[in-house]
C-alpha cells in the first residue's frame, strides 16, 4: 500500500437526537403509583396472571387486563447475574464493584421484574433470596422511583 498510503482511515460521525415517546396510560399510572411507594400490577381475569410492569393485553390469553392490584414491595429472586462490566453506549467498561442484577417475583405477581440488588455480596445473590423494593425519596416521578432492591429482613 506504499503508493496509496492512507491519509484518513476513518471519520467519526456523532448522531445526537431526542425522541419523545408516549408511555401510554398503563405505564403512566405505574409511574404515578411508584411516586407514592406502591408497585401496581394488572391482573388477567382469564388466566389469573398478575403482570408487572403493567400493560393492557395479556400475553397468555390476549384478554384486556384492567384489574389493578398492588404487588410487593417484597419479593423473591428467581434469576440473577453479577455484572463485571457495565455498558456505556454499547461499550463494555469494568464495573467495580460488580453490579448485581436479578429477575424478581414480587409477592402477588406472576411475572418477573428486573432490578438491581444492593447491600449484599455477589456470593449471597442466589435464587430464593428475599428482597424488598427501595424507593427514591423524594420521588422524581419517573421509573427510577423504584430505585433498587435490598435483602429483606
Amino acid at each position, binding site marked *: 500500500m506504499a503508493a496509496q498510503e492512507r491519509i484518513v482511515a476513518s471519520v467519526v460521525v456523532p448522531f445526537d437526537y431526542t425522541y419523545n415517546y408516549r408511555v401510554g396510560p398503563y405505564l403512566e399510572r405505574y409511574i404515578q403509583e411508584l411516586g407514592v411507594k406502591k408497585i401496581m400490577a394488572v391482573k388477567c381475569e382469564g388466566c389469573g396472571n398478575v403482570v408487572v410492569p403493567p400493560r393492557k393485553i395479556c400475553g397468555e390469553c390476549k384478554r384486556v387486563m384492567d384489574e389493578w392490584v398492588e404487588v410487593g414491595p417484597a419479593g423473591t429472586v428467581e434469576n440473577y447475574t453479577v455484572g463485571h462490566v457495565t*455498558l456505556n453506549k454499547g461499550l463494555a467498561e469494568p464495573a467495580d464493584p460488580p453490579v448485581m442484577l436479578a429477575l424478581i417475583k414480587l409477592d402477588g405477581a406472576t411475572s418477573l421484574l428486573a432490578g438491581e440488588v444492593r447491600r449484599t455480596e455477589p456470593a449471597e445473590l442466589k435464587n430464593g433470596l428475599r428482597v424488598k423494593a427501595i424507593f427514591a425519596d423524594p420521588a422524581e416521578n419517573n421509573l427510577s422511583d423504584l430505585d433498587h432492591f435490598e435483602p429483606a429482613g
Partner: protein
Amino acid sequence: MDRKVAIVGQAQTKHSEDTGMPRERMLFELVKGLFGQFGMTRHDIDTFVLCSNDFETGRTISNVFEDTPVGAYMKDETKVEADGAWAVMYAATRILSGIYDTALVVANSLGGSEFRPYLIMDYQLNPTYDRQLALINEPSAAAFQARSYMDKYGMTDAYLDMIAARLLRNAARNPNALRAKADATPEYVAGSEYLYEPLRKLHCYPFTDGACVLLLASGEKAKDLTDSPIWIKGLGDSIESYYLGERELFRSPSARLAAERAYKMAGISDPKGQIDVAEVSAKFTHQEPIICEALGLFPEGSGGEVAEKGLSEIDGDMPVCPSGGALGAYPFSAAGAIRVAECFRQLTGSAGEAQVANAGTAVAHGQDGFCAQHNAVIVLTVEEG
C-alpha cells in the same frame, strides 16, 4: 410446492475485527468475486435482496449506498432489516412466487469496526421502560437466559466452557473465522474474564466485520448454473414475547415452532435421524443447547451430556456448527446467511477440514432479538426430491 428453489453459490469475506476498507468496497469485491465464479453479470440477477441494519449503518434505508457496489441499481431490489436468515427466506419465496428465476442475497455488517453491536441491541429495547432503566442489555439478558437453562437442568459452568472450546476448535478449521484456536480447552475458555456471570468473554460472539453473498435460483435455472445445487426444502420462522419476565428462558418455543414449520414443509419427521449437520446462530454459548433442543436435534436439557460425550463434534452423532458458529464470527446482519452458506459448503462437500462425512441434509438457523426472541429455520438437501 410445484416450483423449486436452490442455492447455487456462496461467498464470504474473511471475517475480521476491522475489514480496513469502506463497506461499499467490501461488498463490491465480494459480489464481483461471486459473479466471476459463474461468469455472470448483474444483469443475470432477477432480484436482489440486501440485508443490513439502518441503526448500525447510521443511515435510514441502509441499502441505499449498497445498491451501487453490488450491482442492484436500476434492478429489482429489496431489503431485509432482520438477520440474514430472513433475507434467504425472502429471496427463496420471491423465486417460489414464479416471478424471478435468480436472486442474490447480500448481507453485511461492520459491527467490528464501525459500530457497537451491543448498542444496536440496546435500541431494540422497549424505549419507554427497559431502555430507561438500563438494567437489561444484550449480555445481561443472555446471562439470565444462561442461568435459567443451567439452573433448570443442573448444568455447570464447566460444560459451557466445553461447548465454547469445541466451537473455537471448529473455527480453526474455517478459513473465514475471526476468532479461532485449534487447541482450545475448557480451561482456556474459563481463563477469559467475566462479562455478566456465568458468561465470560469467550462464551460471547466477537464483534465482527463481514459479509456473505448467496446466489439462489429456480429449479431449472439452478441446474443450468451448477452441477451441484443445494435445494431449499423447508422454511419456517416464529417470534415470541418480548418480555423476558414472562418467558421461560431455558427453552425456545419460537425456535421450536419455526423448526416444526420448516420440517413439515421439508418432510422431516425425525430430525435426529434425517439431519446430518446443523449450523445454528448461538450468539452466546448456552444458546446452542437451547436452540438445538428446540430444533429437535437433542433431548431437552441434555446440553451437559452432549458436551461431555462430544455428540456435537464434527465426527459426532449430530455435528453442530462445524464452522465454529457465532463464536468464530458474528457479522450482525450477515450471521444467519453465513449459517446457510456453511450448510451449503457442507452439502457440496467443500467444507475442507470442517467437512462432515456424507452430509445430505442440513438445517440452518438464524435469530434476532433479545435471548433469541425471533427465530428462522431453513432445511437444505443435496437430493432434489
